[in-house]
């Protein structure tokens, strides 16, 4: 009797989950199929083609490479700046460090457009910088840094990193050596989680980038908006398809990497 009821409950839960998943996934699938349909308005009977994908590649391949370049550079900067910053903030843990932590987190609450506007007002006059992809990089770093700092701080908080640091110091290790030998390896779960977020956020970032880009420094999401606005629906859809094909394997690879290298603190995800 109980098993029967359990099965019914399970079936109902499964059905509900599948329904929700379908609600979220179907639009994405429809959009991607539109990208390989000869004529979207006549439906899939009109035939299947890679014509639109090729067209997207010819028109927008530079935006794809630029997006990856910016994402990797953003990751590099947030790693170099964010991990030592988290270490310093955690060790100090005083009023000043908490204030700095709040300031670093602030961009999460400020609309991307406002940050972009502030950057334009301040640095817009530096022509070469304004025109280069580095200008977008700055925006992305401001936007993603809190995610790196926060996830590393979370791991520091959970693993009593301060005592580990003192332990290494008592054995004669200077700060840099402690950072390399003890802090970074034990912060790895946080660093990996932070990296995953930084890369995905940077690849998908639109708000800031839309304000900061020039016709020569378009990124993938900006190009996508561009194609939605000015191209056939099939081209825009093909663009979505390209985006998915590029980002999904990347995300899966990073997830696997994060799980394998989850670190020794029992914080494996």
């Amino acid at each position, binding site marked *: 009797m109980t098993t029967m009821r359990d099965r019914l409950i399970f079936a109902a839960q499964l059905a509900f989950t599948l329904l929700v998943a379908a609600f979220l996934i179907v639009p994405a699938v429809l959009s991607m199929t539109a990208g390989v349909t000869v004529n979207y308005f006549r439906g899939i009977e009109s035939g299947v083609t890679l014509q639109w994908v090729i067209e997207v590649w010819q028109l927008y391949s530079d935006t794809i490479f630029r997006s990856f370049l910016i994402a990797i550079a953003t990751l590099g900067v947030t790693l170099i700046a964010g991990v030592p910053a988290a270490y310093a903030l955690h060790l100090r843990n005083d009023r000043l460090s908490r204030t700095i932590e709040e300031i670093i987190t602030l961009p999460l609450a400020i609309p991307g457009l406002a940050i972009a506007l502030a950057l334009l007002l301040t640095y817009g006059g530096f022509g070469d910088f304004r025109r280069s992809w580095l200008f977008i990089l700055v925006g992305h770093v401001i936007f993603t840094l809190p995610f790196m700092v926060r996830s590393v701080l979370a791991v520091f908080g959970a693993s*009593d990193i301060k*005592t580990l640091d*003192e*332990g*290494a110091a*008592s*054995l*004669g290790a200077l700060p840099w050596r402690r950072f390399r030998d003890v802090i970074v390896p034990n912060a790895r779960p946080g660093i990996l989680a932070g990296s995953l977020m930084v890369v995905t956020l940077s690849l998908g970032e639109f708000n800031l980038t839309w304000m900061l880009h020039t016709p020569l420094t378009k990124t993938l999401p900006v190009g996508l908006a561009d194609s939605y606005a000015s191209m056939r629906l099939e081209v825009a859809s093909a663009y979505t398809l390209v985006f998915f094909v590029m980002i999904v394997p990347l995300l899966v690879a990073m997830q696997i990497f994060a799980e394998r290298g989850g670190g*020794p603190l*029992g914080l494996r995800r």
Partner: protein
Amino acid sequence: MILQDSRNTSGHGVAVRIENCAKTFADGTQALGPVTLDVARGETLVLLGPSGCGKTTLLRIIAGLETPDAGGRVLFNKTDVTRVPIERRNVGMVFQSYALFPNMTVAENIGYGLKIRGVAEAERNARIAELVELTGIEGLERRRIDQLSGGQRQRVALARAVAVRPSVLLLDEPLTALDAALRERLRGELNRLLRALGITAVYVTHDQSEAMVLGDRIVVMRKGAIAQVGTPRDVYFAPASRFVAEFVGAANIVEAAYETGSLRLPGGTIPIAPPPAMHDGQANGRVVAMIRPESIKLVPAASCALCGLVESVNFIGDKQKASIAGAAEKSLTVDLPNTVAIKVGDRVGLAIEPGEIRLLPGDLA
């Protein structure tokens, strides 16, 4: 500047002097009043006190993890190290949480300090093997830290701290995280190890039996100040204050009138060796005395000079603890052999050797 050559195998450490060290934290809390203390070369000094008494702060000042307030100095063999950071003091430290590196194996943990000092791999491995044997953790060298039990971690932490042949070994409640039986066993092992190494050691604990077993001398601390310094026997038999008497071991504290050679209590009188001098506040003849539960003997009630009624008896196995009412203002706790047959309500006589009664300064709560 590393204070002692790490390859000096004969090293028994340095003499440590703490001079006028106080510590006030940024939020204004004074964790430690000005304290002056000497630790002899090769001595094990135990800092004993309840939590918040400043013992860990004092240890951290010796380690170099805290800087004393202006005017305080820390000297290792007469060299001022007050401004020398911990990484250059050549101390060995065992933390309460052990602070073992989860990203390294047991062997890598033990060898880390040697690696930092640039000791060649062959020599390093030999030293690791030596310490693995000394601390009895053979076979665990390749294990990760999360694969070790609490007792094993404690040994690894100790091995890692002594691997570098430190000038002074600092232990911050290293047995607190373990269960009672293991704690007792490791206490014995730790004692043998400290004697074998003959190294200067400062050991922080709130457990008085740990302090008794391990300390050459004990520093009893209270509210950021030193309440008494002495050998375990001094501290136990001749406590300087009521606080020390009650914190170190069990104690009956009685207030009584002193009358030519004896103390007058509600249940009678007991002879007492004349005090060399009355403490302040005792001129009126009122004294505060300490009597350890094991120094009170039962005698037949018929001829008792000090008498009372048995209020409770607790059989503990190796002994029994009785509470006797009516003899003093408060009930007296008495340790009895487990063979003595008494029951609640019995009238008993109490005898105490005059030398076993210790007068205390009366003004300390």
